[in-house]
């Protein structure tokens, strides 16, 4: 079993608090720089105010092959506005220098591997740590290719979060969990990111398989957009990740202020669902 060592990162503390209150966490993903980094700062403040427990900042990439159309378009908008990894790190610093609750929300950088690699692993890790990022998830990086990455990020006390998938065997889930810190991110379905109507039928068995190999908190993402999804995850998972559903609110909004309100309005009922109903079931173990 992995994840047994006590950790004092802000991510671990946040999940411990959620578990203690029997509450499902809400992890909010938005693409940094969509439509500008200044706007993203406003969005993060609004998301935190509305109750997001953890925030993932997507680093835009020219070739987002794990993403569906919604986040692809967000990446294009972000790159068009001149967003770079350096810019996203500056944004993290600004969030840290803001006021509660935004400066208390754990921040995860969600990137494809190449931008990180081009900055250089050492330089990236020390920069990310110094601006106050809490964890990093690289979509196209698996345990096998990440030995240096994990060593260098861990040395800077950054959590390394890896993805588990429905196609992962039990043995792989154990390996992925052993390489992860903070939490394990389970992909709910085979496919790319994007909002869907229903959760897949085999999700409970995937969660059981993951629980059997780790004590790490488990967040479930890909396809989650509705309070009903969040209610179903209560008692099964520790957190739900909402991404494309938020990004499409930004896309639809007529102004930055309108987008910020729409994001808050999207998060509030999800957080309500996470606090009540089925979600109140005790989370194993």
């Amino acid at each position, binding site marked *: 079993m992995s994840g047994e060592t006590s950790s004092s990162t802000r991510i671990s503390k946040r999940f411990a608090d959620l578990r203690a209150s029997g509450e499902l966490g809400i992890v909010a993903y938005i693409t940094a720089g969509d439509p500008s980094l200044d706007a993203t700062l406003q969005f993060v403040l609004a998301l935190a105010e509305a109750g997001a427990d953890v925030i993932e900042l997507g680093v835009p990439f020219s070739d987002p092959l794990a993403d569906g159309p919604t986040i692809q378009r967000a990446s294009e908008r972000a790159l068009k506005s001149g967003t770079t990894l350096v810019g996203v790190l500056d944004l993290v610093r600004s969030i840290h220098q803001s006021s509660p609750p935004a400066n208390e929300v754990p921040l995860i950088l969600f990137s494809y*591997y*190449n931008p990180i690699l081009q900055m250089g692993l050492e330089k990236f890790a020390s920069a990310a740590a110094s601006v106050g990022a809490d964890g990093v998830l690289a979509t196209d990086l698996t345990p096998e290719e990440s030995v240096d990455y994990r060593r260098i990020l861990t040395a800077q006390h950054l959590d390394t979060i890896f993805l588990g998938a429905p196609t992962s065997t039990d043995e792989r889930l154990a390996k992925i969990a052993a390489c992860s810190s903070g939490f394990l991110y389970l992909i709910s379905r*085979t496919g790319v990111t994007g909002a869907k109507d229903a959760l897949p039928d085999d999700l409970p068995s995937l969660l059981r398989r993951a629980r059997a190999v780790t004590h790490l908190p488990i967040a479930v993402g890909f396809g989650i957009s509705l309070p009903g999804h969040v209610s179903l995850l209560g008692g099964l998972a520790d957190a739900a990740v909402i991404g494309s559903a938020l990004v499409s609110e930004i896309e639809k909004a007529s102004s930055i202020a309108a987008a910020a309100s729409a994001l808050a309005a999207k998060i509030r009922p999800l957080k309500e669902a996470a606090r009540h109903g089925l979600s109140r079931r005790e989370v194993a173990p």
Partner: protein
Amino acid sequence: MSSILQSATTAPGRFGPYGGRYVPETLMVPLFELERAYEEAKSDPKFQAQLQDLLKNFAGRPTPLQFASRLTEKLGGLRIYLKREDLLHTGAHKINNAIGQGLLAKKMGKPRIVAETGAGQHGVASATVAAHLGLDCVVYMGTEDMARQALNVSRMRMLGAQVVGVDSGSRTLKDAINEAMRDWVTNVRSTHYLLGSVLGAHPYPTMVRDFQSVIGREAREQILAAEKRLPTHLFACVGGGSNAIGLFHQFLRDAEVKMIGIEAGGRGGQLGEHAARLAAHQGFTGARPGVLQGTYTYVLQNEDGQIAATHSISAGLDYPAIGPEHAWLADQHRAEYSAVSDQAALDAARLLSRTEGIIPALESAHAIAGLIERIPKMSKADLVILNLSGRGDKDMDTYSRLL
């Protein structure tokens, strides 16, 4: 040269530092399954018999190694042989790999294949093999490429494949690969991704090379029979690099055989104007090692690690990364890489058409242009094999505008 061959096997799927497996987790177990199925197939007599039968009776192997007598004369007398992959069924070397992977898909019980295509030759080969083996086939193709290779779009549809236009990014091969990977990751339990070049995550670069290395095995025997000696130079165009590695691989141990890969120099050296990943020595800028679409290799990119736009008149060479084994061969100075311009390729296509009666694909025309540009540095005693990887029917729109 044995060190090159050995280091290629030190870590699975690594060519020196290049290669590897950089994919979303969902694809890892399917890649392991593919690797296992491929390893089994290598020593499975039934699979090998099917493969040989289809290569011979369906695709038309072996292909001739033709002495190009008038081209030889025109270029000053050093002897030039053409490996006539353009004579294969569907018109290019791509069918060699499509047959191999199509049989693997059957063996793995996957009823559906997806493929990407740039020039359309791999898409046509995939659609052809899918029809022949009774598999469903979806081909992703950039809309820019669909316009410039319209004939191949019709061929794929005639063969029953669904051709899906990709409108994102530069609307070329790179974007078609992104979309094929998105389909694969979604339908991975029923679908095999029939990747068309020595790109992507392990085992693709190794497996596709193996399926294409029939080119070099035949060529080596044929040149020894015809000339009683090994060639001094091999020429091939390099997009992802499957026809080049297919020719080169059987000659890697022959240290005296020089291998030259020709990239697309497009309109010039500035990033965005070319697709030359290993020709920095000629002033083609923007290539650095990085990760794209599953593999670590030389990639055309900006300072921030965003993948650059590319340009080539040839859809099949218009791609920002190069197969990882080529990156390694270049680092080791075992193969040389240089780029020729759009215009040089067009001129070469016209020259070959009029001296040999062969209209080459625009991709293969780059190899001819590369040979022409190197002639001043060569001697009359040199002996060349040039891989004529495909025929030019698909490029007639482009060519006819020049006449």
